[in-house]
């Protein structure tokens, strides 16, 4: 278990931890926009940059790296608030504010770094997407890959293939749930669900009649887990009832 110093605080972490884990363990806050525990780090937003020096480097030699995906090593020194780090984060937030001038999440972060208004040319046609890639990555993670990023550079956007309702989408809403700016629209009711232009019929609990899950999602999970479909069709309430019944039947042995 390597020990390293974050802003002067000594901290010991697992050897497969990242600098972000180490900083958090040391109680140091590092801002992130594209990081999500449980998903592989991506290093896209560049907000989590820190200054890092390896044990065998010269004392004053630091390199700027992203904390979210840089592995820890014994004797490392990490500084999260040097002038150049703050300045780099400021540039990143200033740029994001130009892209998404009306997005509260970005406005708040920018303000925290002293930026009230962007220094750059604001996006004439803004939306709330900050291109953090969380939606596409969670979709990949679930094993669906229904959406991806299209185009490159400034024109990059998140879209289903050919901007048509994605045939692979299972309507699980993970993309919409994970989105830090809530910019993926969807509709869901007791009967129907709609996201990315694709409509889904909800499977309902046979006993309670509650909408539980889309048919596509149940099938996807059943296939991947080997658990029978009926499990996914059962609502949480039904499951609890089943369990209560089981408990009632149990005989307590004295």
């Amino acid at each position, binding site marked *: 278990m390597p020990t390293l110093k974050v802003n002067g605080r000594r901290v010991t972490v697992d050897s497969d931890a990242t600098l972000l884990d180490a900083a958090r363990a040391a109680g140091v806050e590092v801002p992130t926009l594209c990081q999500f525990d449980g998903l592989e780090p991506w290093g896209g937003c560049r907000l989590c940059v820190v200054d890092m020096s390896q044990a065998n480097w010269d004392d004053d030699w630091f390199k700027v790296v992203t904390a979210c995906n840089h592995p820890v090593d014994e004797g490392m020194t990490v500084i999260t608030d040097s002038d150049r780090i703050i*300045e780099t984060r400021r*540039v990143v937030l200033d740029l994001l504010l130009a892209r998404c001038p009306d997005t509260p999440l970005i406005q708040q972060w920018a303000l925290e770094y002293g930026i009230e208004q962007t220094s750059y040319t604001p996006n004439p046609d803004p939306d709330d997407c900050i291109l953090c890639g969380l939606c596409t990555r969670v979709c990949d993670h679930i094993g669906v890959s229904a959406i991806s990023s299209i185009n490159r550079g400034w024109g990059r956007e998140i879209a289903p293939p050919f901007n048509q309702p994605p045939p692979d989408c299972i309507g699980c809403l993970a993309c919409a749930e994970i989105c830090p700016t809530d910019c993926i629209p969807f509709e869901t009711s007791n009967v129907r669900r709609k996201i990315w232009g694709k409509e889904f019929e909800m499977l309902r609990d046979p006993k309670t009649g509650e909408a539980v899950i889309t048919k596509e999602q149940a099938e996807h999970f059943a296939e991947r887990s080997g658990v029978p479909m009926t499990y996914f069709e059962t609502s949480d309430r039904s499951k609890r009832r089943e369990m209560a019944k089981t408990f009632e039947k149990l005989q307590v042995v004295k």
Partner: protein
Amino acid sequence: MRIESRDQFEALRKQSLEIETNRKQQVLVCCGTGCLASGSKEVAEAFADEIAKRSIDATVDLFVKSTGCHGFCERGPLVVLNPQGILYTKVKAGRVEEIVEKTLVGGEVIPGLLYKDPVSGERVEQYEEVPFYRHQVRVAMRNIGRIDPTDILDAIAQGSYSGVAKVLFEMSPHEVIGEVATSGQRGRGGAGFNTARKWQSCKDAPGERCYVLCNGDEGDPGAFKDRSIMEGDPHSVLEGMIIGAYAVQANEGWIYVRDEYPLAVVNLTIAIREARKYGLLGENIMGSGFDFDIKISRGGGAFVCGESSALMRSLEGKTGEPRAKYVHSTDKGLFDLPTVLNNVETWAGIGAIIERGGAWFASMGTERSKGTKAFSLVGKVKNTGLIELPMGTTLRHIIYDIGGGILKDRPFKAVQTGGPSGGCVPEELLDLPVDYEELTEAGSMMGSGGMIVMDDRTCMVDVSRFFLAFLEEESCGKCTPCREGLKQMLHVYGRIIAGKGQAGDLELIEKLAAGMQLGSLCELGKSAPNPVLSTLRYFRSEYEAHISDHACPAGVCRELTAFEIVEDGCDGCHLCYKACPVDAITGVVKELHVIDHEACISCGACLDVCPTDTIRTFPKHELEKAEVV
């Protein structure tokens, strides 16, 4: 046909060399992409037709070879006659019969086809004596122009695959890495990482297999050295890769070629097929027991796929986007296995290093940058083309002695090295010896070896904007600083060039550049501010003139520049009248011509054609002042 032992290889080599030396009269026709575009295929065909005719009277035992790029693309199509050693330039198919009749049969040189030295004005007969070639030292490009790239026996005759025979039968993998370490060779893709150290790391890394890759995704505007090597001598690349694979004990390799290089793909494919046929690739190479095979992967057209991690993602069939490289690709590269990725030129040099020894290679170059380096010399220089020189050669030597100086003998302004993310080096640094460190210190970089020469008619603000626009188009958009930063940088440049620059714009650019350098994910974004920062460093006054005086000192930026014809210089040649695309020039032959400022779109076409240099540029706002008066 398949070579089963070293003896068989040596016998084949001897036999091929004999065939080569027995050819009494050889005609080498350059069939690189540049010369092909100028019609060299027709020239080669015309020679072939002549052979057919001549074989009847059997006066000349003629052998025509279509070779790779000779480098002197400016003067193509090029034809070299051996053993005479005569170079004919700008040869058209129609003159082939004359060449055969006069030179080959009659032994008489045709002066009109010889190269004319722009400096001395003299005609140069011998290929070796042409200044463009005389100063060069060719290692990676040693066989280009000498061999027919589609004929493996021709390559073997010139020494190809001898290095493979040497390492497989005489050297241990450890010794191979040692020899390359002695050479001091560094990566020719631009970053300049030590080749031997890269190989050693890969060899030491744990993993059930490892891979060797060749980066042929050359995409910098104006760079074509890798293309010429892959087209003109694909065998040198294969040879280097086989040696590298043996050193790290890899059995599989890929060449990632830019799909816009069709001839390179064809020639590499033929070379791989031939090498397999002769047992130089595949299982049990030359009967040594070592297996290694190479596949070609055609790039999908994104510039960023030349970046190592993006290239590997692309090879894996994923989106070609870079990922953070805190773990080296020599530890976890392609499919997360140890991988050696080297540039085309790096691989091409390996065979020569093994054959002639690392010490020979290290005897050339500077202390920290050994050997030779290929450059694509383009822009406002008389002799454009592909050259290879020892490291440490000065920019002045390259531009003036090999390049023949600036077109129309105009003043030199800057040379842009290292591709779009390189920097512009000004006149006061012309004596800079070119190596990795010196260029970096000057605010530029070695990069792809591209050299774009600029004259006084170049606006440095406009040039920087051009490179930024290229990079903005090619940024993958994964990380914020590169995606948003390049876009915003262009916004600022757009207003400066339009004369609407504001106080504080230069500081804003500098702040943004620093953020991009520190914050971007890959080298594309990190190095994108180079052209900006180097021009700000050496040509800051030009920026200031745009912002505070609303003037473009070079007379390039259209919205700031007006043109007029100086009265006493114009001899009424009428050329500008014909060149003007909007009919803004009036005047009759042999009389003074006049530019209508209202109609003029400031394109500069008139200035470019004016033989008497009597068209001058001035800031557009002076026109408005004149109107007020």
